[in-house]
């Protein structure tokens, strides 16, 4: 394996190899493949005094709905081993206030702004997109059809191929900017859902959202979250998320953004090698805000060491001979 790997790398005498780590997704260029995930990075400004936001590839803002949303009653979060459960319920300022109050700052950054869009019905999604279409400086949309914490909409769409097709097709028609669709991992066949979204017009896919989970306080015998269940995120979900990205990448032609428990350069590289053209950093922003920029540098150094451009790395997974062409078949 090592010798094989070396033969593909550029010769070592090519000193000062400067790898190209920019990436392109559906015609949108990102200066590097590291984005911050929706719901973990606010509207960007919250982190402005902790890091140079201009060095990020992109910022995916908190899910925006057509109208402002209240969110769920507390308790909304609970820490579990190597992960956390959340049931925030998409509390947000709504599309109009986002354009007025949040977008002007995001527009000034070199990091590209991706707006995560949420709705309770297909009409809701369309209405939200129509409002956001007026925004200057939005690079792309990320359609959230996979939030596990709202009663209707959200995951209901992401779990049903017919509804996924309906909402993606309607959103694609309404969207002025490229449309990424964020898929739910709470499905039997992720490749099928990926293909459905692609066929319905998605320009790209983000996967995965959180896994539905639960925790119970045994003293009071009550759920730890007021919503009873919540979305599990963090390093605990990484191997499963990685497997799903691998499967989806083999099932569709559109670009994939990989997300799920990434907290190190090595984690990010695994997703890129599995076929993701970019990655999103989520829960790690909460406990270690420096993670994203460390990964940007880490990916650059790795590419330098391997004498590879990012584009050579993406999807470069070497499978044992005879691996099933349909990775969903175990």
């Amino acid at each position, binding site marked *: 394996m090592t010798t094989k790997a070396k033969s593909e790398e550029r010769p070592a005498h090519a000193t000062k190899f400067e790898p190209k780590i920019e990436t392109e997704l559906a015609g949108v260029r990102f200066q590097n493949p590291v984005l911050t995930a929706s719901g973990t990075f*606010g509207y960007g400004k919250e982190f402005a005094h902790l890091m140079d936001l201009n060095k990020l590839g992109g910022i995916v803002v908190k899910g925006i709905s057509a109208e402002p949303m209240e969110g*769920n009653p*507390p308790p909304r979060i609970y820490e579990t081993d*190597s992960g*956390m459960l959340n049931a925030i319920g998409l509390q947000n300022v709504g599309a109009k206030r986002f354009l007025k109050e949040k977008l002007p700052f995001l527009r000034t950054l070199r990091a590209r702004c991706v707006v995560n869009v949420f709705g309770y019905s297909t009409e809701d999604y369309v209405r939200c997109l129509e409002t956001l279409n007026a925004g200057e400086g939005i690079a792309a949309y990320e359609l959230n059809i996979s939030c596990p914490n709202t009663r209707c909409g959200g995951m209901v769409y992401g779990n049903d191929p017919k509804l996924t097709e309906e909402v993606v097709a309607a959103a694609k028609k309404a969207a002025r900017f490229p449309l990424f669709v964020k898929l739910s991992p709470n499905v039997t066949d992720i490749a099928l859902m990926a293909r459905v979204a692609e066929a319905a017009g998605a320009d790209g896919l983000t996967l995965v959202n959180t896994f539905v989970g639960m925790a119970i306080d045994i003293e009071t015998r*009550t759920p730890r979250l007021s*919503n009873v269940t919540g979305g599990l995120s963090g390093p605990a979900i990484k191997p499963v998320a990685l497997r799903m990205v691998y499967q989806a990448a083999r099932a569709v032609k559109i670009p994939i953004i990989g997300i799920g428990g990434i907290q190190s350069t090595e984690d990010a590289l695994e997703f890129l090698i599995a076929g993701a053209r970019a990655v999103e950093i989520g829960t790690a*922003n*909460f*406990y270690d805000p420096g993670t994203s920029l460390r990964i940007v540098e880490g990916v650059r150094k790795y590419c330098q060491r391997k004498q590879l451009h990012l584009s050579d790395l993406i999807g470069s997974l070497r499978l044992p001979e005879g691996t099933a062409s349909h990775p969903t078949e175990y």
Partner: protein
Amino acid sequence: MYDEIVAVTENRPLTGGHFLLSVRSPRQAPAIRPGQFAMIRILGRSDVLLRRPMSVYDIKAGQEGRQKRASNSPEIIQFLYKVVGRGTRLMSELKPGDRVGLLAPLGHGFFEEEYLPRAHEADEILHVAGGIGIAALLLPAKRLKEAGFHQRLFFGGRTKDDLVGVADFRPLIRAMLLATENGSMGYRGFVTRPLEDYLRKHTEKRFLLMVCGPWGMLEASVALARRFGHPCLVSMENRMGCGLGVCLGCCIRVEGTGHEAYQRVCTEGPVFWADKVIWQKEGIPKTK
């Protein structure tokens, strides 16, 4: 606000599973204002991810005896905490020289530009603490002492071992009233009983209350303040994901509608005017 790795200088065990943790941060210590908090991260644990929110208990100058800079600008940040779960247990195992992640200063604390008009109208400031809630009140008490206000402390715990830090308050206040649920020190029962007696006895006086403690104790104290017509500031606690205002995990119900119905304890708080908070708990069903 800074995010840095800092060294533990001391982690002193106190009674009842309480500890006083000291860390050195010449950058963060001078920036901390009363009522603010820090997010502490235990390093090197892949199972315990999230930082833990901790009230800043006190700020101290650098260690004496060392040939340090001439200035006596504060360098040491102290946290008074009780071991209640996995995160605080790991904190209790920290030794001098160990490193922790420290994100501070955070939150909207006891800011004098907001409470001074009310403090000047008051005859006395009443601090009301339940258990480890005491940790949020030392810095405001120090600031108020410097400004010449009369202060009184009502402090309750389950047992006398919970009444930590009393000596630090003594030079700052006129009098303190202690209460324990098992009667091992001071009044037997909840601290809100002696508070109620005091308020009833002095209806002619005006007070400003500053309260920190568990939810039930906050609720009872706020109800008393309202009944006797005194302004009241509360320092709230909640589980937090980030401390930065982005995860929205620590929100509490406040007066308002739409996306303003919930506010973040980490950003709009932890200190709120009591009448802003909706005290009726939702979500979790009542246990028997």
